[in-house]
């Protein structure tokens, strides 16, 4: 059996080939074409890529993508780490409700992106009866232009994304935290190390691998996020929250530009692939 691994890999290779490779190959073909949703390709060349580079909106979209991705990844790491450490500490002390806490955090993860966007749109509503603003007003704080102010709209989109994605980071960090040898903490306590010192000198170094892997995974995940933004802001106001994945969607389904949209999609694929290679390299280093 070991001598003939290809036979055993064939089914999964067929499935992956059908589901992933063929569509990606078609996207590559379309990216070099002038195809639109209204007509098939009539010529092949680099016009789609040229139009992509010439478009004056691409700079804004890429900047939005970088801001959204970096802010989300930082937020996801911090929130996930915080919740994971909280749950691990609760477990260690035998506090009741830790399972419920984990379940509540995980519940956000299973909410579909579109539903997540709608939930936060309702919460961020700037109507006189909007949920968060009404609460702020009740305690004497000023109302916030969550979605109508272009800069706050990006903050709101990041908050919604972090709320949904924290569970994944929490799972990764919780598993890694549970794997840390408790004798390290016992020794540190004997030496008189305070909690902050234990966190900095034991927890963080031990979680380094998990942090690196999680960074790559949530970056890929965030780069591909568009459904929650679509439901939350639609990319607006203006283009204030239009990220690359949403821009590709608009390019194909409003502009009907299959060629240009495919070229942009390949840029996204290239970024995600590069990050995946980093992830694989990190995993390999972890094993050696």
């Amino acid at each position, binding site marked *: 059996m070991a001598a003939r691994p290809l036979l055993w890999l064939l089914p999964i290779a067929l499935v992956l080939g059908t589901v992933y490779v063929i569509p990606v190959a078609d996207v590559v073909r379309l990216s070099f074409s*002038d195809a*639109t*949703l*209204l*007509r*098939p390709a009539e010529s092949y060349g680099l016009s789609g890529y040229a*139009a992509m580079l*010439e*478009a*004056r*909106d691409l700079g804004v979209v890429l900047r939005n993508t970088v801001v959204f991705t970096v802010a989300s990844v930082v937020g996801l790491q911090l929130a996930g780490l915080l919740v994971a450490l909280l749950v691990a500490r609760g477990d260690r002390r035998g506090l009741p409700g830790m399972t419920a806490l984990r379940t509540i955090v995980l519940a956000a993860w299973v909410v579909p992106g579109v539903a997540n966007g709608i939930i936060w*749109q309702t919460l961020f*509503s*700037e*109507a*006189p*009866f909007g949920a968060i603003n009404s609460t702020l007003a009740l305690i004497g704080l000023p109302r916030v*232009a969550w*979605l*109508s*102010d*272009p800069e706050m709209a990006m903050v709101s989109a990041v908050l919604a994304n972090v709320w949904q994605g924290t569970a994944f980071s929490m799972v990764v960090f919780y598993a890694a935290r549970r794997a840390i040898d408790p004798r390290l903490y016992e020794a540190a306590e004997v030496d008189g190390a305070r909690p902050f010192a234990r966190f900095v000198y034991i927890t963080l170094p031990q979680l380094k691998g998990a942090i690196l892997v999680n960074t790559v995974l949530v970056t890929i995940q965030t780069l591909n996020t568009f459904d929650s933004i679509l439901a939350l*802001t*639609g*990319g*607006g*106001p*203006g*283009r*204030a929250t239009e990220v690359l994945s949403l821009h590709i*969607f*608009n390019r*194909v*389904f*409003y*502009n*009907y*530009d299959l*060629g*240009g949209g495919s070229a942009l999609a390949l840029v996204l694929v290239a970024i995600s692939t590069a990050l995946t290679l980093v992830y694989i390299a990190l995993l390999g280093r972890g094993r050696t």
Partner: protein
Amino acid sequence: MTLRLSTSVAAIALTAAPLAAQDLITRDRVGLPDAPNAMSFRLTAYDLYSSDLEMRAAFEALFTEFIEARPDWRIDTQLATDNIGEEQARMLEQARAGRGPDCAMIDSSQLATFKAAGVLAPMNDHWAEEEIADLFPFVREAVTDADGNLVAWWWFTDLRVLYRDTAVVPEAPQTWDELEAAAVAASEAGLEGILFNGARWEGTTFDWLGNFWAAGGELVDEDGRPVFGEGENREAFLEALGYYRSLVESGAAPGRVTTINNYDEFNAAAAAGTAAMFVGGNWQYGQLAGTLSEERFADWAVSELPGPTAEDRATGTGGWTIAALSDDPEKVQLCAEMVKEIYSGAGNAVQGLLPTSAAQYETYDAFEGPQFDLFAEALVNGRPRPGAAIYPEISNQIQILMGDVLSGAAEPEAALDAAFEASLAAYERL
């Protein structure tokens, strides 16, 4: 003869039909599962599968009667998603690849795209010439292709109107200036003066276009090329855009209009008593009647959209069409018969949706009432969206521009130049 059809259909629905409907109508089928012939039909979720039980029952009765008369047929229903742009683009792609439904509801704004792609089957044989001649002119033009073929039936239309709380704004504003003055006064009294769609969605463009047209602008020329950023059209565009910008800058409209992407927001504001006026669709009249108490509803009135002057008015007219996308003449015939027997006329009356031919207003008593007189009057100034394949991208650019200008992120002139340039570039690639 005046038919009391909506009442009788509802009565049938609530009495005799349910038993039959259980057998003949499921979530993905109308007719018997083993019927020898099948036609696929993609429809929206507002009639046969409406969440409004009374509405659903009425359409179940209509469909049951229709399919019982054709026992050899089964209609395989496909429910469309409510993301209209994406849904219609996907359906077009499927139709081009020969995998589309046999019969489908097509948004009137997207009909030109389907016509341009050549995926619609002519349905001339199924309507009399008089019936086609009785369609409103803008409807007839839209559903006819270059060869004079009838390629779809536009079964209901709608229009944009101004709703106002007469307790706050007693007189209907006739001009943009009058509306702004009334809205500023209302906002000084602690209300949101005027609400309108301003977020990234089609409603933003469509509701605003009436102002652009009233100012004398045109989006595209006869060849479908964008022209809204040049010559007199540019001036009209900046004038109409300046009107909306001024509403926000003066406080007549709240800054949150750039987040409104749903007509339900207006109903909610009316129910909460927080808004004095809003630009909405004619269909919201019935929704308000059902949402507000009788006493509160009596305060709300509807009027034509104001214009730059009282004489220059325009309003966007939308609605849905049904078309056949099959080469099979029998399926095309079934599709046409379904339109005639279920949707056009009877369906209009059940849903209170405005018919597209004058005769139907006389036929059904569902269209009696002062609001329908106002709608019919305003329809004289009705304008459909241009039947050009570039329209969805123009709309997308206007949505972006509106958000930028109303949020203060861009000046109108620069935003218009960017939108026009992007639209032209997209047009070249089509």
